[in-house]
């Protein structure tokens, strides 16, 4: 038997203290990812600190059009929130395209952001994996990697971040609120929250031990913007993205792109904000040629592997379709 202790935190200070400086302690939210990883032997916490009773379970719409989402808000609640559906529909779409109804009813906002990769080698302790056991090597690069990353990857790791929600949040310029282990509050833009693997793929975020995600803030979307989350997957539900695209588009009267934001899922170790493509597109007419050029600019730095090179082409088509739909004024 592998014993571990379980405590239920009553306030965030106690939660942080219980985890800080105890590398073997972990926060437990919905447990839909962590408990699975414990069963597989990938996560072996000595202590679970249950944070689900902490007071971060609210969705607060503010007068300026922004929203503050508690880290413990369940995915199902967030996707059903009328304000979110009305003003951040891409987030609701992303959430509803993820996992299953049962899982979404348990999974939390914070846990979703911090879920681990689905790379099969990461999840199998009998195989080498630099992310799970640094220095052992990457089994995916010479093995099966159709579902893994094409951009932002490294020679040490090609795993992808699996979250749909985080891709929508990336395109919505989300800001993560963190209560640091020492009690101080800090905000981190989502675009700086995740780390690229480089040669330390086991380090995935800027969080240190005991740092607690408390909320996610979404600023008001640009006036007149339309948005969409489109997920392409290997079956019609209950599958992680092969590639997903989140887009926010605002056009001027003559059809030029006043503002365009793009984020991609399924292609990178982090929710991938496609800044290069955005730059190419902003202020221009979204012709198919330009959209293709924008995607090409984005993927100039890609590192495709033999089985997953198709993702670049797929993402290009998806960007093209999505932006043209949205620029046509339709909430596709």
């Amino acid at each position, binding site marked *: 038997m592998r014993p571990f202790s379980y405590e239920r935190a009553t306030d965030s200070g106690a939660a942080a203290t219980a985890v800080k400086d105890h590398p073997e302690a972990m926060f437990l939210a919905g447990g839909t990812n962590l408990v699975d990883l414990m*069963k597989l032997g990938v996560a072996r916490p000595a202590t679970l600190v249950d944070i689900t009773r902490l007071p971060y379970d609210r969705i607060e719409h503010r007068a300026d059009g922004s929203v503050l989402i508690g880290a413990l808000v369940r995915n199902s609640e967030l996707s059903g929130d009328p304000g979110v559906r009305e003003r951040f529909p891409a987030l609701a779409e992303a959430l509803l395209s993820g996992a299953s109804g049962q899982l979404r009813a348990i999974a939390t906002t914070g846990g979703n952001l911090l879920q681990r990769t689905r790379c099969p080698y990461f999840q*199998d302790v009998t195989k080498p994996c630099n992310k799970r056991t640094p220095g052992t090597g990457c089994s995916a690069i010479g093995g099966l990697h*159709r579902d893994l990353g094409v951009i932002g990857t490294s020679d040490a790791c090609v795993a992808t971040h699996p979250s749909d929600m985080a891709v929508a949040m990336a395109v919505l310029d989300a800001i993560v609120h963190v209560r640091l282990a020492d009690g101080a509050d800090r905000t981190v833009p989502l675009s700086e929250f995740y780390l690229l693997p480089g040669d330390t793929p086991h380090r995935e975020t800027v969080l240190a031990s005991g740092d607690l995600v408390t909320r996610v803030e979404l600023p008001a979307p640009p006036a007149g913007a339309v948005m969409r989350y489109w997920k*392409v997957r290997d*079956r*019609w539900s209950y599958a992680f993205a*092969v590639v997903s695209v989140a887009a926010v588009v605002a056009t001027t009267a003559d059809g030029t792109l006043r503002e365009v934001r793009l984020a991609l899922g399924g292609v990178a170790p982090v929710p991938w904000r496609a800044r290069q493509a955005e730059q190419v597109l902003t202020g221009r007419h979204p012709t198919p040629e330009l959209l293709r050029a924008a995607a090409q600019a984005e993927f100039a730095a890609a590192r495709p592997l033999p089985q997953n090179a*198709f993702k670049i082409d*797929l993402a290009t088509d998806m960007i093209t*379709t999505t932006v043209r739909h949205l620029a046509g004024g339709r909430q596709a």
Partner: protein
Amino acid sequence: MTMLERAVGAAVARIEGRDKVTGAARYAYEYPVPDVVYAWPVQSTIARGRVRVIDGDAALSQPDVIAVLDSGNAPRLQPTDDAEMAVLQSGDVAYRGQIVAAVVAGTLEAAREAAAAVRVDYDEDAHDVMLRTDDPQIFAPETVNAGFPGVLDVGDVERALAAAPVAIDATYSTPAEHTSPMEPHATIAIWDGDALTVYNGDQGPWMTSMALAALFGLPGGAVSVIADHVGGGFGSKALPRPPTVLAALAARAVGRPVKVALTRQQMFSLVTYRTPTIQRVRLGAGRDGRLAAISHDSLQQSSTLVEFCEQTVTPTRIMYAAPNRRTTHRLAQLDVPTPGWMRAPGEMPGMFALESAMDELAYALRMDPIEVRVVNEPSADPESGLPFSSRNLVACLREGAARFGWAERDPTPGVRRDGRWLIGSGVAASTYPVYTMASTAVARAEPGGGFTVRVAAADIGTGARTALAQIAADELRVPLERVGIEVGRSGLGSAPFAGGSMGTSSWGWAVSKACRALVKELAERSGAIPSDGLETQADTTEDLQNRKQLSRHAFGAQFAEVRVDADSGQVRVDRLLGVFAAGRIVNARTARSQLLGGMIMGLSTALYENLEMDPQSGDFANHDLAGYHIASNSDVRRIEAHWIDEHDDELNPVGTKGIGEIGIVGTAAAIANAVHHATGSRQRHLPITLDRVRATLPR
């Protein structure tokens, strides 16, 4: 009596349905057993080699751990043909994931944790795990699964192909697939002296009892197998698999009852998967569509432990008339787990290739795909020359065409659009042999006026229990409520397993015979029932031997309508429609479920299922249900299964052909043919994933 409605044919709800949905039905793992302990397998982390040392000290020092078993200290078993069953009998490793040791402990958790602490050192050899056509060790087995000849060659195929005005030559492939039944494999083994009781997720309790008795060197009656309820099997619970043997072995070793239950991940290497295949089909036809030559060759894999060669090209032998025919199997024995029976072994992969090729032929001929099949309809079994007991393929095609609206179909590929979506439809034929095996059954008239029927059948979720009770009720000429039915236990008498779609035919025959005998005896006694009841037994061995020599097969036609997203390559099956001719349908409700279930599994095969071998580790990499995709509810839209009234007196007294497997046969070809119709491109490799579709879409 004349007023009594026949039970056979009615849409009767499962007898045990309420028990299942309320949780009262017990599955193997759930029986309370005093003093029980738990065994957890330690699986090899190499694909080929030998165990050098097993160090169980760290495991043994953990709390609650009772024993660490390996090939050095495990009880000895009798030699067996099925080397997969020789668990812990040698230190040789034939595939990654093979059981090399096991920990027995007082709790499941303790056993699992200690198993992770067992240190195994290996002498590792290079492994060969990938099926490829240029592997020098490929050979052609003389016989293949179910006893079919490996190679058949009639006429001169090469000459006929060369001379044919229209010819098709195409290579198809199907991936390894995993059975993945809902209930993971589980066993409780209890020894009492030299008697063994096994609660097992089992498709054939009597046959398992015989196999285990032989393995442990015991007389046949010494092993009792109990499988009251089974959560699916799809072939993987037909023969005892390593976890069942491990439970019995561990219980023998520690002298206490032992439970074994596999995790979903462990199932992928320890219980049955379907071999991948690489198939070449060549067809040669005249301009009138008549086939002059059919050639179908299939390459597949087995392990180095067991020569299992799936009978992939056997359906081709009976499908179409052609004077020149060659059908061959070849096998590569690799460092992989042993593949085995998965729903319609042979027919599923074989008919994907043949029925795709028939569609290609129809397009090459500019002929309707249904008409190509109709003109090649044989008057007798092309292989044996025997008459068919009944053959209603054409009726199924016609009925399906009418229901589906085939007549309105424009055959031109790649021209129908609905926004981003490309639309298409396709058809394929289905077939499945009528297997029947001898069975025994007992019928009893109880003093209180009720009846009890006993047969060692297995209800693996199919509704077999209910169907057998219906058969009994009609033979006894009483309402269904008066028939008590007992199945799922080896002690009920000899009986075959639930496999080969033969359950209802084989068990039903014995049930019907026992009931008829009982009715006769009761009549002779003018209905008087002795105080301890009246019992008759039946054994169908001789009846089977006395059947006429005929070719017995079920047939069907499957129609699919698909839409393909031109932007992403995703395929969506909007509609599936199947029409089957499978003899008498005993229970309209459970039969429909079997046929729909088969069709859904066929859809799953067409688009999703793919057990991926990792060449480096020699392991199936996607060994869980998040990575191994099976069709979900939202993948299935409109789906219909129909059957035609088929009366065939040359089968068995009930007139059944079997419906468990035919539903999966042909579905994948119908869908692949529909994808061609939608996009204009052939998909010859399963599954039809979006990247494969995208590779063929015009840019």
